[in-house]
């Protein structure tokens, strides 16, 4: 049997000052296969992909595309050889139109044929079933749609090698299904697809083979059909991990009947969520669930006044309070970990230390700065407590992996000793190990008496952590599930109405 390798990489090494990102890694991609690239954060997946796409130059090793040795010096060069990429975070231009984004940086011409561009875009959007208009500004599309546009763009570039780095992390199930059917279509046309994801189920659903990296080294290449999910996880973690799905569901405790911490009535916001009522008790973990765009994020943002509040009342510990700015919520002991880590969460260039102490510092006030020593002590305490992997407290937060950035933001809120913590997709786009860790932490906070609202696209995760789920549809609450009714099927029934 002859299978043609469209991409071959041998003995790839890549180092950064102080970090050995890749060491002697090999990778092959066949024509017409989907190849899952798996590993924890910091395993070297991103670096390997960036070597493939010419973002980084490799320090050592060989690379061949369709049997020809090549050496990419820039992403443009890689593009010319038919390597297309869709990155984890959307790297299009939010303030340009959909059509412009579709064709930006692709033309070799000085002039633009706007009419043709528009027609072509309309046709592309139509063929992929993407609900967007060519003249629409990209930022007005939902994250999911933006992601699909990025994929359509890459697919339109006649690529032989398509690299999808976490393409599904912001898509709902329906959209994932659409994406997978597109991937199968491309597969049948002979395109080799590298698929990076943290969703184990998805890897198995679509991949032919799986390559596992750990700490910058190749662990192995396997046929997806002969590698069990449990084996895969232990290879990624480097140790036999207790099966993630075996994690015990939280037992309902006496606390669930405790005093309400926060009660909202008729709350609505400028982000378009319909007036809703909401209560959370001391030490309770509840969650908002629903399809993407159902209004779950908008609801919690309304509680924290992250979007402009347009109506409703909030009682905190039985007393009526006014929350019209995030600072008011913070002063009442509420913390909010936003869905969009990069845009709303981290302060990019600042150090891990500054990012950890930020909320506490703001609560203390403008005229009461923490001393360098105090800040250092706090940062170190929480780096240790949450096991944040950071070279030092002065490292810029952007040089940490996504999971560790998320933990820094978690640390930021824990430091304020809050009563109520809102976590919007805290586990999105981070590795399995950290995911489990964050779920455990959430359970621990609740033990300590903190109330938590937890939102996740992975219903499994919510079922494991939450004792009450509020189901949303079309920006309104359509149901609430507790106890025995907390199952995936019940949620589906409520959503389907």
């Amino acid at each position, binding site marked *: 049997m002859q299978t043609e390798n469209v991409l071959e990489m041998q003995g790839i090494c890549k180092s950064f000052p102080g*970090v050995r*990102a890749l060491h002697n890694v090999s990778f092959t991609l066949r024509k017409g296969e989907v190849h899952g690239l798996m590993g924890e954060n910091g395993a070297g997946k991103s670096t390997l992909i960036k070597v493939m796409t010419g973002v980084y130059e490799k320090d050592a090793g060989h690379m061949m595309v369709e049997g020809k040795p090549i050496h990419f010096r820039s992403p443009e060069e890689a593009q010319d050889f038919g390597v297309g990429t869709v990155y984890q975070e959307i790297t299009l231009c939010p303030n340009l139109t959909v059509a412009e984004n579709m064709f930006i940086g692709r033309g070799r011409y000085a002039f633009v044929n706007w009419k043709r561009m528009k027609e072509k875009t309309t046709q592309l959007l139509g063929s992929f079933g993407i609900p967007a208009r060519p003249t629409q500004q990209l930022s007005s599309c939902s994250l999911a749609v933006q992601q699909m546009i990025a994929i359509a763009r890459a697919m339109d570039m006649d690529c032989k090698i398509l690299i999808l780095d976490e393409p599904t992390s912001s898509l709902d199930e329906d959209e994932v299904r659409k994406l997978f059917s597109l991937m199968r279509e491309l597969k049948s046309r002979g395109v080799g697809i590298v698929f990076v994801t943290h969703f184990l189920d998805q890897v198995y659903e679509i991949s032919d083979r799986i390559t596992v990296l750990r700490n910058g080294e190749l662990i192995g290449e396997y046929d997806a059909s002969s590698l069990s999910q449990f084996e895969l996880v232990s290879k990624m973690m480097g140790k036999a991990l207790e099966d993630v799905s075996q994690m015990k569901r939280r037992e309902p405790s006496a606390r669930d009947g405790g005093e309400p911490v926060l009660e909202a009535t008729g709350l609505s916001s400028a982000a378009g969520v319909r007036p809703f009522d909401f209560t959370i008790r001391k030490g309770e973990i509840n969650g908002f669930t629903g399809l993407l765009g159902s209004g779950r994020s908008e609801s919690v943002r309304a509680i924290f006044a992250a979007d402009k509040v347009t109506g409703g009342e909030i009682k905190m510990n039985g007393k009526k309070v006014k929350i019209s*700015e995030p*600072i008011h919520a913070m002063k009442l002991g509420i913390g909010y970990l936003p869905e969009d880590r990069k845009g709303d969460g981290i302060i990019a260039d600042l150090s891990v230390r500054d990012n950890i102490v930020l909320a506490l*510092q*703001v609560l203390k006030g403008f005229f009461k*700065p923490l001393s360098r020593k105090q800040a250092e002590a706090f940062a170190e305490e929480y780096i240790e407590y949450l096991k944040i992997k950071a070279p030092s407290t002065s490292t810029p937060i*952007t*040089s940490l992996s996504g999971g560790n950035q998320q933990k820094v933001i978690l640390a930021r809120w824990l430091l304020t000793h809050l009563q109520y913590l809102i976590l919007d997709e805290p586990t999105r786009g981070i590795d399995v190990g950290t995911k489990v860790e964050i779920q455990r932490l959430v359970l621990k906070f609740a033990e300590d008496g903190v109330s938590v609202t937890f939102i996740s696209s992975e219903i499994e995760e919510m079922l494991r952590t939450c004792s009450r789920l509020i189901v949303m549809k079309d920006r309104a609450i359509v149901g609430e599930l507790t106890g025995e009714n907390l199952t995936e099927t019940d949620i589906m029934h409520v959503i389907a109405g």
Partner: protein
Amino acid sequence: MARMKSYGSQLFLPLSVLAILILVNLIKGSSYFSISIINGALYGNIPNILFGASELVILAIGMTLVTSSAGSQDLSVGVAATITSAVFVWVLLSAGKITWITILAAFLASCVVGILIGTFNGALVAALNVQPIVATLIVYTAGRSIAFLIDGKLSPILANNLTYEIGSEIPGVPIQTPIILTAVFVVLFAVLLRTTNLKLYSQSVGINQRAARLNGINPVRIKFLAFMIMGVCTAVAGFIAVTKAGRHDSVNLLKDIEMDAILAVAIGGSSLYGGKFSITGSIIGAYTIEVLNRTLLRLDVDPDAIKAFKAVFIIILMVIASPAVRELAGNGTKWVRDRLGGAVQIPTAIGEDAAVDPKSDISAKKEV
């Protein structure tokens, strides 16, 4: 990427430029550092540089703060200082008698006007979201005419001992007064940074306004504050400039200094797109510009051609500081280090993901 560098290497550029300039001066004549005492006051190149750069240092400090939080520059600083100093002269001369008290009163009045101008700029930028360069262009355009009107269409003269002593030296004090005033200002500003969260807040707002707000910071208030502090800076700079000159020339006072102030911030290693900043860097940058001006004079460059020479120098400087050259230099040092077997430690701190993503800046800059 230029913003990822550590604090130490941030000061590397301005310090090395300063060192090169001083070296050039030493080659030209070894007496560069010599200081003589005439009539109990210090004279020499170094006192001259410190004296000459006073206003620029103060304005560069304010510019750094505005740049950090607003992500853009204030073009009106030189003109605003001309207005505040016009107010100072007007109040002082209308008071009739010139005493320490009337000088103080006039100075405070000029500070109030400076803060008002800052409030005006701040309102446009922070509350109405006008681009800072456009917003400050208003005062820049109108300011010198306003100062001329305050002056009564004249060029009033400060002919008295007290203001002379402020602008040059007080008998018995070996250091010129503007140098002392600048030092006091720098110390006060350092105290401000130490006793408040100004730095953390304005950096946060400059880097990611949305995240700053979600952490309880009010971005509008911080930008306002930056422009108001800038207003105080212009008042102090105007005060020093007019006492130095001894007369208020609303056309030429502190002409074009806003460009030097911006340049000082850039040389100091702070990004002109806002966010992280180094006040020390900006101060060194300001002195560097003064040394450059004086070096060109000392090298007998035709005074008419000085600006052209200065421009050439700035181009070289900016090319050296550009990310592309930095990367080359980084590779170069890596090459050297590899050959020396890791004996030399060069401070470059770029982590795996840090170096990658120019887009992160764009998304962080996106306003709500």
